[in-house]
């Protein structure tokens, strides 16, 4: 068996605990967590404890660890550019959470730094690694539905999921540093619609809003529609104010010239009692597809690319393109007009 790939973890908050650390555990025969870092020393120590890894409050200490070949960056997006550029300078491969950055200029710097250093930069668009969307992409490639002409998705997250999000007590609720729903959630939709339609975006129209009680001004709602260069249309409505138990968390639909594909959570969710007076759902009994295997497959993509010195299946330019659409959507909402895209950015 090849030697395990030494990993560092930068950022030990919610997504690290719920997704990246379990993914590392799943791949424990192939990876070894050697060092962690988080400004919160307790969080860094907790993440390190299961592996006997070293814990730091300064991410640069992780980059100095000689055994670390790759770092998983699970910090907020405002921290990505500095951390990725530093990792590249230290010769470390990178798996960085989405969105790649807050601006296209930052993204370009990160991509260039990794290219110069000869290290991989994989951006964590985790949904590309779900079995569900693997199957969708394969069906498109087989021509099962002809040419994709219309992509639509609703992502309707429950309020308080997690409890602290969108409140001033958490960075997601801080208007100074949070990109809000366009960056946290809709970046998935802008990536998926482009991936499935297979063309570049030519224009974006969007509306944004603040809908959650207690939210002090971070965009938590976005509805956007994208015109693609091949004539196809993408649309996505993303919100974070659904009551608990609301079943249509994700519903992605593709309509092609010869068929349609639907991948919808609510088709597989819920327990319903049928009575003479009507039907009722006594509570929320979740059967959503669990996303954890997607994070393991995502990490495996980086590990396998390192081991075989092969290109990543999703180069960082793809993440940059998703960011360009999301930024254009925000701009469209702000100015009240459709925004044209050209050469990968706002025209």
């Amino acid at each position, binding site marked *: 068996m090849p030697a395990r790939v030494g990993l560092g973890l930068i950022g030990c908050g919610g997504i690290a605990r719920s997704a990246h650390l379990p993914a590392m555990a799943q791949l424990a025969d192939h990876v070894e967590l050697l060092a962690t870092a988080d400004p919160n020393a307790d969080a860094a120590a907790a993440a390190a404890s299961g592996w006997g890894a070293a814990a730091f409050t300064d991410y640069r200490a992780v980059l100095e660890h000689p055994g670390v070949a790759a770092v998983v960056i699970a910090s907020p997006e405002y921290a990505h550019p500095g951390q990725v550029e530093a990792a590249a300078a230290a010769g470390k491969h990178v798996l960085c959470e989405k969105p790649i950055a807050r601006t296209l200029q930052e993204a370009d710097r990160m991509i260039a730094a990794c290219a110069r250093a000869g290290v991989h930069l994989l951006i964590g668009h985790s949904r590309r690694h779900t079995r569900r969307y693997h199957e969708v992409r394969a069906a498109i490639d087989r021509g099962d*539905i002809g040419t994709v*002409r*219309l992509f*639509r998705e*609703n992502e*309707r997250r429950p309020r308080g999921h997690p409890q602290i999000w969108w409140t001033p007590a958490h960075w997601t609720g801080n208007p100074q540093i949070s990109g809000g729903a366009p960056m946290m959630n809709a970046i998935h939709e802008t990536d998926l619609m482009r991936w499935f339609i297979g063309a570049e975006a030519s*224009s974006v*129209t*969007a*509306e944004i*809003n603040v*809908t959650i*009680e207690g939210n002090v001004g971070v965009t938590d*709602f976005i*509805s956007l*529609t*994208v*015109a693609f260069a091949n*004539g*196809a*249309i993408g*649309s996505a*409505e993303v*919100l974070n*104010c*659904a*009551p*608990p*138990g*609301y*079943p*249509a968390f994700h519903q992605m639909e593709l*309509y092609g*010239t*010869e*068929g*349609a594909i639907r991948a*919808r959570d*609510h*088709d597989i969710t*819920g327990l*319903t009692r049928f009575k003479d*007076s*009507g*039907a*009722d*759902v*006594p*509570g*929320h009994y979740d059967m959503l597809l669990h996303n954890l295997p997607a994070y393991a497959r995502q990490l495996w993509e980086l590990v396998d690319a390192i081991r075989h010195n092969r290109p990543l299946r999703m180069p960082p330019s793809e993440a940059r393109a998703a960011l360009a659409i999301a930024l254009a959507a925000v701009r469209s909402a702000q100015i*009240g*007009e*459709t925004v044209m895209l050209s050469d990968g950015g706002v025209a």
Partner: protein
Amino acid sequence: MTAPIHLALIGHGKLGLALRTHGAPLGRIRLVQDRHKAQATLIELPQPERVPAVITALQAGHIVLCPPPVALDAAELAAIEQAQNAGGGRLLPAGEIAHTPAGRRGLAEMAAPAFGPLRSLYIAIRQPRGPGPDVLDSLLPEALDMVLAAIPDTFTSARINAASLFGPERDTAIILLRTDSDIVVTLELSRCLPPTLPAPGLGEIEIDAMGAHQAIRIAASAGAVSVYRDDGTTTHPWLDSPALAMLRALEHAHGTPQTAPSGLTRAFRALAVDGLIRGK
């Protein structure tokens, strides 16, 4: 015993067919062949003939049901308003979605205090792929009628991304609306369904309304209407038919003063929002 209300049917459409085939008295409603003996009229005519028929019925003092759009421009609506004022008739809202069992229940739930202020509204209407008129002419009027039934606010902006995706005609439109109270409405209208979805020849309607305390979901896959509450519980009540709901509205309107916004008011609002969407 309460006197019957005589209803004349003009034109041929889904509502008239439902009433003709019902085969029994419908509450106080009695269908009559002679429109001169009627007190109410259901008009299902194509657009060039629709406005004159509406005007004639209103001038005769009838309660008038007419699916949207009642008129295509301000001049036609002004003529209808003049006829209503002169004849004493009353135009009632007759959007089919708003009168479906799920639509009515959804509107009632949204209007209830427990729902809280509306945050966002999403309406999708999908029809089978194939030739047909521009979706702004075929699917938008029904969607707008439901939007206006749900939201009394003024609409301040509308933006549209529309294209011919599956054939030569404009078959798909994504429309984003915003009100003066910052409610965002998303409309997705498309003739995009393959022949196998959901059943040959049928379409789909999906409505999701997010309130501060509850959400309403109306969708083919949800069965009818579903109410999701903050405590995590959900209910799906049983409901009845849209044509009967329209007739109940007609019965209620007959002989009682107008309390709710009239069909004419909704038609004026629809014309204004339609103009925003089309950039007129």
